[in-house]
């Protein structure tokens, strides 16, 4: 299987301090890759550099074999490499309808009528009545779903999701899980950064563990947490030793 996204020797330094790298990583078409790791391990920095929101200090990013390291973030999105954010999920000061219209415009769709919007809302499990609400009035979970709807309207080939389960209750988390499973069955690949491993691991084809800005381990969901080095990175060496 050829890699859709590939990064080689990717590094990011802040004021001389290395926050990321060097990282070698790839994601195949239709594959769901989970990224886990303790806070400060470089997961979000990896997202920012990969999607063009930050310039790498070193290394290259390839999309379908083409070097996109110098390509601006908005152009990467147009290529099909779309990301979501942990906090900045929606355009909160405008109605849901206008949120969705922006995504439709960006996808080059001429018809901005409600039918296309309602289809997208229903795909992610948002009720029809939300179309008239201000996005800022939605619940946290609904904002999360709307953020994903915005990204999915653009028909991404690879979606980078930054903590999609953060702050969700069980019902909302189940809705997000359903939507991710639907995405997977529709052949849309994803890289998911997440701390909620009980929700993440069943969805993933492969899991990558970050620690101190580098990839510590990589493997299947079943095997990855059995590794002592992963458990030590996550829970601390003392806890693992007591086990």
């Amino acid at each position, binding site marked *: 299987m050829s890699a859709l996204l590939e990064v080689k020797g990717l590094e990011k330094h802040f004021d001389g301090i290395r926050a990321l790298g060097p990282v070698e990583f790839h994601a195949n078409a239709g594959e769901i890759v989970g990224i886990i790791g303790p806070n400060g391990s470089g997961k979000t920095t990896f997202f920012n550099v990969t999607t063009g929101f930050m310039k790498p200090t070193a290394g290259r990013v390839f999309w379908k074999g083409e070097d996109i390291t110098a390509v601006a973030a908005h152009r990467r999105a147009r290529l099909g490499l779309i990301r979501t954010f942990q906090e900045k999920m929606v*355009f909160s000061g405008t109605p849901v309808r206008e949120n969705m*219209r922006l995504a439709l*415009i960006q996808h080059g769709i001429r018809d*901005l009528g409600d039918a296309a919007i309602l289809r997208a809302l229903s795909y992610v499990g948002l009720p029809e009545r939300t179309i008239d609400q*201000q996005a800022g009035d939605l*619940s946290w979970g609904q904002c999360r779903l709307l953020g994903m709807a915005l990204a999915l309207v653009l028909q991404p080939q690879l979606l980078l999701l930054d903590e999609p389960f953060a702050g969700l209750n069980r019902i909302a988390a189940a809705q997000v899980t359903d939507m991710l499973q639907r995405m997977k069955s529709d052949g849309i690949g994803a890289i998911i950064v997440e701390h909620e491993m009980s929700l993440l691991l069943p969805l993933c084809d492969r899991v990558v563990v970050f620690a101190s800005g580098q990839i510590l381990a990589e493997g299947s969901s079943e095997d990855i947490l059995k590794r002592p080095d992963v458990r030590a990175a996550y829970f601390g060496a003392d806890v693992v030793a007591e086990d």
Partner: protein
Amino acid sequence: MDWLARIKVSPLTPYAGVALLAVLAYFFPYTSPSNKTLSLATSVVVYSIAASGLGLLWGQSGQLTLAHAAVFGLGAYAAALTGKFFSLGFVAALPVSIGTGLLAGAIIALPSLRTTGHYFVILTFAIGEVLAVVQMRLDWLTGGANGTTTPVGTQSAFGYALGQSKDFYSLVVLFAAIVLMLVCYIMRSRWGIILRSIRENADLATSLGVNIKLHRLLVFSASGAIAGLAGQLFAYQVKYIAPTLFTSQTSILLLLVVLLGGKSYLLGPVVGALVYFFLPYAFDLTPIQSQIAFGAVLVIMILLAPSGLLGSIWRALHRTRAPKAGAKV
């Protein structure tokens, strides 16, 4: 207030509203107002146009600038100086003043491609002040601190005698109607949606493929073009311009006008200009009293009604529906 929700608004309603307002304003001189009232009404319309440019920039795309008066001034100087040195009449000077504003807007936008937020506002303040100093120092061209006059003479444009206050007022109202309809079109267009997305969340807009640098450049240019036009109308209204008229203090005045009416509303700048010019007149306030009053109004508006008078009215009309619309699910 459920009846509000049931009203179906035609896409043409805002344009019809602007047209109706323009007709009412156009026939205002037929009520035989005093010279003072007509002069104030002309100022309201000219500042409404200038503030509409700022409203488009600030209210729609979220870009706050303190150099808007400088662009307004460049439009005024472009009209006055092309008249003085090249004998260009009002109509021939229009593309020059609009073009000057557009270009100035684009140049001011350039730093916004690298800097945003408070630093950008400080930068625009500096740009505005530098432009005022340049206008002051280039006295061979601009007349320096003494300013320059606009050669209005016996010119007429589109059948209106520019030296006649009633005719000039009517012409300015027509320009205001065109500008408001243009801004209305932008607000309701796909570009309007893109601009609001940048205002709301520039990172998210980028992640959805919006080239925010390009759109910032375009909206600054459009706003500058409107300010340039307003500048020319101002130069022909007051017939004498000087650098002190276009400092950051005037930019703050324009901000106040936009904030008073409501920065996200099409008619916000018009309402703001009406209040700004007619309130001191109605209460017979001295300039010092007006400054104190508007300082207080500015503080009150920011604290209690940041969405302006129109925003407050809109919210009051929808108050009874708000809990339903805002229900968390």
